[in-house]
């Protein structure tokens, strides 16, 4: 469906994208997550054929997307929604109709599709309103409708819900999922919100510093990030450097200054590694004889408790600082408080081992 090989983009002396290669399959929702300024928007503009890459090759819908003669026709089979909705100083109806008018669709078709789209985005009575009078969330929904009504084969979404009200976010995500499910539209969506990536996308490419260092399912990326940078971005709280001291049939012991961990890895003794595990994989017990099968149990003192919605991050000094994420209710049941002695445990299988270069 989309095949990018070695795509690069320079703005003058500045390299924005470096040798990006990936593919998007037919009818999937492919996510691009990465911090702001990592190159996601630029990549989407290359894919939507608004900008031309400095190097590399790009095939979209089986056609060479860098062939100047093919780009116009190809572009009409794609659509894009940008982060900041572009709204024309006309009615909502005219805004949504624009792409269809460019394609010389009949008035009847335009009227029918605009009506359907307005219902889909939850603004059925807005046709005659001046689009400039809409709120940010409504404007973004109108922009989404405008992108949808031309029936694109691929829809690109660049941070479609950044800074929007929760109702609009929900409506936009719902519309995107519905479009993908019912019309079979292939979707490429960029976001810096990992949870949104998880809600929408099957596969995700991580964009960092103009590259895509990892592509995988959300579970892969959350639990087995390919680099420490990715780990930090997907909020893996526990990241420690150490070395493997022994390895018996894949069950290795990793010495970290202050502690040692059991982890699963094929790497042999002497290897310098980082170990990563998520805070929600850490359980807290009051006594050491807990029923868990965890191999790694550490006694420590609670240093801090940081609330996070219905959860709390509990930072436990076990020689090293281990962070656990538990519900507020569990924290209350266990009567956790700074200074309290607890046991933190994490299963060997929950620990991801990364070789350090």
């Amino acid at each position, binding site marked *: 469906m989309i095949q990018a090989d070695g795509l690069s983009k320079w703005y003058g002396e500045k390299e924005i994208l470096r040798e990006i290669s990936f593919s998007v399959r037919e009818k999937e929702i492919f996510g691009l997550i990465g911090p702001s300024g990592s190159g996601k928007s630029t990549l989407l*503009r290359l894919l*939507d054929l*608004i900008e031309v890459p400095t190097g590399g090759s790009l095939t979209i819908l089986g056609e060479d997307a860098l062939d100047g003669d093919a780009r*116009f026709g190809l*572009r*009409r089979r*794609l*659509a*894009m929604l*940008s982060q*900041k909705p*572009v*709204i*024309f*100083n*006309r009615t909502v109806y005219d805004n949504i109709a*624009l*792409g269809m008018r*460019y*394609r010389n669709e009949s008035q009847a078709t335009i009227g029918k599709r605009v009506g359907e789209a307005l219902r889909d985005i939850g603004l059925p009575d807005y046709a005659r309103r*001046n689009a*400039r*009078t809409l709120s940010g969330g409504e404007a973004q929904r109108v922009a989404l409708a*405008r*992108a949808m009504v*031309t029936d694109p084969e691929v829809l690109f979404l660049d941070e479609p819900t950044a800074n929007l009200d929760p109702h609009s976010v929900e409506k936009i995500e719902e519309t995107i999922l519905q479009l993908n499910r019912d019309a079979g539209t292939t979707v490429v969506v960029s976001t810096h919100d990992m949870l949104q990536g998880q809600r929408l996308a099957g596969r995700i490419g991580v964009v960092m510093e103009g590259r895509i260092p990892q592509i995988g399912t959300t579970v892969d990326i959350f639990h087995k990030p390919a680099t420490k940078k990715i780990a930090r971005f997907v909020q893996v709280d526990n990241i420690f450097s150490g070395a493997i001291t022994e390895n018996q049939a894949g069950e290795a012991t990793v010495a970290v200054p202050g502690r040692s961990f059991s982890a699963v890895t094929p790497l042999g003794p002497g290897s310098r590694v980082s170990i990563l595990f998520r805070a929600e994989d850490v359980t807290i017990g009051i006594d050491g004889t807990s029923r868990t099968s965890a191999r790694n149990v550490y006694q420590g003192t609670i240093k801090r408790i940081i609330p996070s919605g219905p959860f709390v991050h509990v930072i436990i000094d076990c020689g090293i600082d281990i962070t656990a994420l538990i519900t507020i209710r569990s924290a209350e049941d266990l009567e956790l408080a700074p200074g309290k002695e607890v046991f933190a445990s994490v299963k060997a299988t929950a620990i991801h081992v990364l070789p350090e270069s």
Partner: protein
Amino acid sequence: MAGEITDGFIQAFQLIVSGNPEVIRITILSLEISLTATFLSACIAIPLGAFLYYHDFRGKRVVINLIQTLYALPTVIAGLVLFLFISNQGPFGFLHLLYTAPGMVIAQMILVLPLVTGLTFAALSGIDPDMRQTITSLGATTLQSVRTLILEARFGILAAVILGFGRAISEVGAAMIIGGNIRGYTRVLTTAISLETSIGDFAFAIALGVILLGVAVIVNIGLNLVQSGSAWKSSFTS
């Protein structure tokens, strides 16, 4: 003298109310020439402004600066230059445009073209640059894209055209040099006022002056309507 002024106003009022044929003829010719000049200028200047907005080329900044300088081109200089071109000895003398209405239209176009071109360019430049990308992404051809952008900048462009008309109808220098103030053929409001004042027919001059002022007021009201219209429509966005 005070009595003369009062009498002049009273007579002027009578001239207007009674529909003096000479006054009407001069007013209509004025409007015809200036509206034609404005219309033809807009037909050239709006696409030209759009061209300047769309294309980046070397020296573009200089061209824009030059156009902006011409906003203040003295009307007598425009008249003089055109005179040199279309007088019998000039390169376009064979067209016999001197002392004709079409000649005056050309003279006024020289004054209006830079104004509308420059202000059209400015109105388009004021559009969010992301809009161009969005239009491209929506599958517009270049022509469709230009059309959409001009429509988006319609309030600014309309204001430019109205300003251009104001400049055309109120100028006297070029009209006098190129038209020659020939009664019934090239005598317009401004040249007639100039003549009648110099020969002491104040009533006639005042009557024409009131009409010219009336046109200026209408132009100004139109401009305000256009600008408040766009302001009203965009006041909800912030």
